């Protein structure tokens, strides 16, 4: 069963902590509930997005620096 991970905030979604860094998670990675999977930049401030669920084989549905809405699905994991 796949579980959706949604962004709690609208803004710009970043998959990397900084432009030069590696992504927080790559497609196919396993995640723990407390793992940070991305950042949302909203009104020039940055907020961490945690997976919220544990799972394997994460698949991102948004790219780095994509604009997202609050509640939008940003990734799915397999339970």
């Amino acid at each position, binding site marked *: 069963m796949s579980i959706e991970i949604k962004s709690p905030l609208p*803004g710009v979604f970043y998959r990397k902590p900084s432009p030069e860094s590696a992504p927080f998670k790559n497609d196919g990675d396993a995640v723990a509930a407390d793992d940070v999977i991305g950042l949302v930049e909203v009104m020039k401030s940055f907020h961490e997005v945690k997976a919220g669920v544990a799972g394997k084989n994460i698949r991102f549905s948004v790219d780095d620096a994509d604009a997202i809405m609050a509640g939008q699905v940003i990734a799915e994991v397999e339970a």
Partner: protein
Amino acid sequence: MTLRSVLIANRGEIAVRIIRAAKALGLRTVLAHSIADKESLAAQLADETVEIGPPAAKKSYLNIEAVVNAAKSAKVDAVHPGYGFLAENAEFAEAVTAAGIVFVGPSAEAIRLLGDKVMARQVAALAGVPTVPGSDGRVTDLDAAITIANSIGYPVMIKAAAGGGGRGIRIVGDAEEFARQFPQASSEAAAAFGDGGLYIEKVIERARHVEVQILGDGHDVVHCYERECSLQRRRQKVWEEAPAVGLPDDVRQRLCASAVALGRAVGYSGAGTVEYLYDDATSAFYFIEVNTRIQVEHPVTEMITGIDLVQEMLTIAGGARLSVAQDDIRIQGHAIECRINAEDPHKGFMPAPGTIERLVVPDGEGIRFDTLLFEGYAVPPFYDSLLGKLIVRGADRADCLARLRTALDGLVITGIPTTIPLHAALARDASVADGRTHTRFLEPWLETDFAQLARAREDA
């Protein structure tokens, strides 16, 4: 030449402000906007609009090529950069000028010179403007830096030469911490600003932030007195006043004269602001930096002097001389500006974009609200959180505060949380009323007084 048209390379309330000023002068207005700002108030007010790119500022408002191309295609005489974005980017000013279009602001050389904090400090010192004790320019060698810091006395600030707006600053308390932080600060500055240059300054523990508005036309420079912006959170101004609270007249004269001397030293053209730290205890003031653009808080100066700074920028850019002589500029009353942000002051100032349901703007003598809002407008998440600025003028400061309290009670914005409750509390605070504030007043006050008010409100 007199300008006939202007492209506004900005968004939000300042784009609205510039469009109104340009229209009052009979100019054709063209707004360069991102896709996200298609429905904005500025887009509705402008005579024409040009879309310059996607929501992310990097790809639109910060894209020099896109903005210059928009100006060319709209065949405008001038470009007004507003504040933020490309307003203090010398490369942008150069690109605009190279396209045969007037840049509304100082020359690219002046922007470059004054934008480099180390160079600006040297220019200030040469013009006889007092500077904060610190390094004599850039410091690269750690041992040399430690020697300087030791001689200034701790705490000291390590500042990025290319930083600004409160960014790229670290405060360190002793030599050991200094040795640890200095190399980090350099690599951080290199990453953030593309320039790892650092300089060192003494920390003035209890200081007011005071700044002088100047206007130049390339021939002469005048000042429009000072503003005080001591109420800051995370080095961002929250509440601004003009004139400064409790500044003795002789200090005011010397402060403003020093800003004019600095402006004259570089043949300044356009509107600019010379920022200082003011030490209440000693009445000493120290130069911090020059901002070569219109500032967010410019309306408080307009309210007490009656000068329209944005119109003045446009006429100067068109080649006119200053419309006012120094002797004609007088302080009339007192003005306060409250920045109304889309942030929840009860939840750690969490930004909160969303749709405006209801907007009621108070009216009355001496009340002005510069805003980007209208009912039904969806505030986008991509830009800063400033929704508007409530500016109130009174006969004196006490009168101004009384009018401000009434105006804040009359300002209604629903649909998203705003910082109106913060300002309502500040406007009723005894320390604020007595002018007992400084740059480090607001943050502790939020933890104590404001938190207590919030708890009392919840209990009620």
